[in-house]
């Protein structure tokens, strides 16, 4: 077993770290306070190629593997969760789904501009009345001739007000015996007539990011924008989550590292009772748990990324990585505040932002409770993963890096 990262991996991490340390970290507190996304973030991520990191070169991407995606997400969330969220929706939930399920025509029309960063992409699954209960969604897409008429509302959508494209799941068969089978997935251009979008303010965390809603009123979606087949929407959505959760888990690993680094620095600087607080065993215990969480979270997402590279189904492993890392990032941030004492309670330090940012990921892309049910179901033999009609393609360096 070889745990060594390649030179490409390490150099990609270094490049993203340079970007975040020079262009994100110095000002992120101000944007978080303003509850606005810094206007330079998306264009710079696009310009630097981050938005297409693991998409084949022939589709406008950078040709790196799935492990690099995880490493990049870890590095981005080390700076701020909002940057990793961009990758979760643009790459994990949307672009990788087009790579996996899309026709060649869809790849050319949607994936290429997304991977090049010319267009931003989001994912519309959750509704005001349907979160974990995906099959309870009420959005509809009714076929009329050569197009579908889309109606409904999607809520808690990252990049809602910034994205050009959305992968939207809606009900196409109102009479399906199993409501899961009545769902279909569509690639929707958000400048279409009848689409309105907006941002939600007053969120607990990810305040320097865009989270909002998409509303569709009699939106005509060309039939050729149906992703996969009619009735495959639920399976497609779940396969998207295998990739989105991977970015969330690897990102949360970065948040644990951020909490750890902040705590170590503070524990070495701050003195109480005549010595550095790092000398006190209860502070050491908190730091030790952060180290443990970081290493475990990283191993879990690396395994998931390796399985993606190999073309192996990784629903179970990715769920575990996401569940563990997000819970652990919340705990690490809370303990980092404790290490910082009263200063940690102030936004003069980053750790209170880490705690606020960590909470969302414990809820979205499968709550921790959903992941516990999944893991128990696998262990008890209640759940197995069947083959998909279209699997996420295994990473093939030669294919990925060839121009055509």
């Amino acid at each position: 077993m070889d745990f060594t990262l390649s030179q490409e991996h390490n150099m990609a991490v270094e490049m993203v770290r340079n970007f975040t340390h020079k262009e994100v970290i110095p000002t992120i507190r101000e944007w978080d306070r303003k509850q606005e996304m810094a206007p330079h973030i998306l264009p710079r991520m696009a310009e630097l190629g981050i938005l297409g990191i693991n998409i084949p070169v022939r589709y406008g991407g950078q040709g790196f593997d799935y492990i690099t995606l995880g490493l990049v997400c870890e590095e981005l969330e080390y700076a701020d969760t909002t940057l990793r969220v961009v990758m979760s929706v643009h790459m994990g939930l949307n672009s990788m789904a087009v790579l996996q399920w899309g026709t060649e025509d869809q790849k050319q029309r949607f994936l290429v501009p997304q991977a090049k960063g010319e267009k931003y992409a989001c994912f519309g699954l959750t509704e005001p009345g349907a979160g974990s209960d995906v099959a309870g969604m009420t959005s509809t897409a009714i076929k009329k001739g050569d197009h579908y008429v889309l109606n409904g509302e999607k809520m808690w959508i990252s990049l809602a007000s910034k994205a050009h494209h959305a992968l939207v799941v809606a009900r196409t068969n109102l009479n399906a015996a199993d409501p899961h089978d009545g769902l279909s997935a569509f690639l929707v251009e958000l400048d279409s007539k009848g689409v309105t979008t907006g941002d939600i303010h007053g969120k607990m965390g990810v305040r320097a990011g865009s989270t909002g809603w998409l509303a569709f009123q009699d939106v005509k979606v060309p039939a050729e924008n149906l992703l996969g087949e009619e009735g495959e929407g639920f399976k497609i959505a779940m396969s998207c989550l295998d990739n989105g959760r991977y970015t969330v888990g690897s990102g949360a690993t970065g948040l644990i590292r951020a909490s750890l680094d902040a705590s170590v620095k503070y524990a070495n600087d701050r003195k109480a009772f005549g010595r550095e607080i790092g000398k006190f065993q209860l502070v050491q215990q908190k730091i030790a748990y952060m180290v443990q969480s970081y290493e475990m979270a990283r191993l879990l997402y690396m395994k998931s990324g390796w399985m993606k590279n190999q073309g192996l189904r990784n629903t179970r492993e990715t769920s575990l990585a996401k569940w563990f890392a997000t819970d652990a990032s919340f705990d690490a941030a809370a303990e980092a505040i404790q290490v910082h004492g009263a200063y940690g309670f102030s936004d003069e330090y980053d750790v209170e932002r880490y705690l606020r940012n960590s909470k969302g990921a414990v809820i979205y892309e499968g709550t921790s409770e959903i992941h516990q049910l999944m893991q128990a179901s696998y262990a008890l033999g209640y759940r197995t993963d069947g083959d998909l009609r279209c699997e996420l393609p295994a990473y093939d360096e030669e294919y990925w890096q060839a121009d055509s």
Partner: protein
Amino acid sequence: MKIVVCVKQVPDTAAKVVVDGGVVSWGDAPLVINPWDEYAVEAALQLAEKSGGTVTAISLGGEAAKEALKHALAMGCNDAVLVNDPALADIDTQGAARVLAAAIQKTGDARIAVFGKQAIDGDSGVTAAQTARALGWPALTLAASVSLDGDTLKVERAMEEGRQKAEAPLPAVLSIVKDFGEPRYPSFMGIRKAAKAEIPAWSLADLGVAAPAAAVTWKEILNPPARQVTNEMITGASPDEIAAKLADKIMEEKVL
């Protein structure tokens, strides 16, 4: 037009460098490309982009120096060469300059050699000028901006007293300062190219030069003297009271 940029592998600026028993150590901190050399690479790439030329990165050092060269390749340099020879272990800047000059000449038809203003380890800041001397080329040092007008290199030098415009005919040596502008990040495409690159290593025999004897030797290396620092927390009932106490303290200590 061929442009050569000379880069050096140094300990990370964030590393805690200490002297232990006369030996310099930076612990397990990583080695990185000398930060000043990133500006040099940026300048070389911009010159090449404007003149339709190519950029070759050269480093003098051990195997580890290949990392600095790969960074330069990932930023966009066309190729890279490592000059590696056991006889180079204890050379001084003059010796390094002679070897670099030989390597620059061996590239064939280099017209410009670009350096960072200094390396953050040795901090001598003279290698660019010494290399120019060894090559017999004019040196335009501390350049904050650079332009090419035919066969004339024009620079604006950043000096403590102000700016100075200078020019010299090609071939010439340049050293670049921070005012030149932020160096670009390595691109992902560049990273892929760099990771796969086979970097040739030239020995002194390949360059046809003898091992240069060091005229300058480091007789002793010391840690900076430890400073005694005491902290005093100034407290008060209000920010105004704290500010007033602080102002009194500053006056009392004759800081102002």
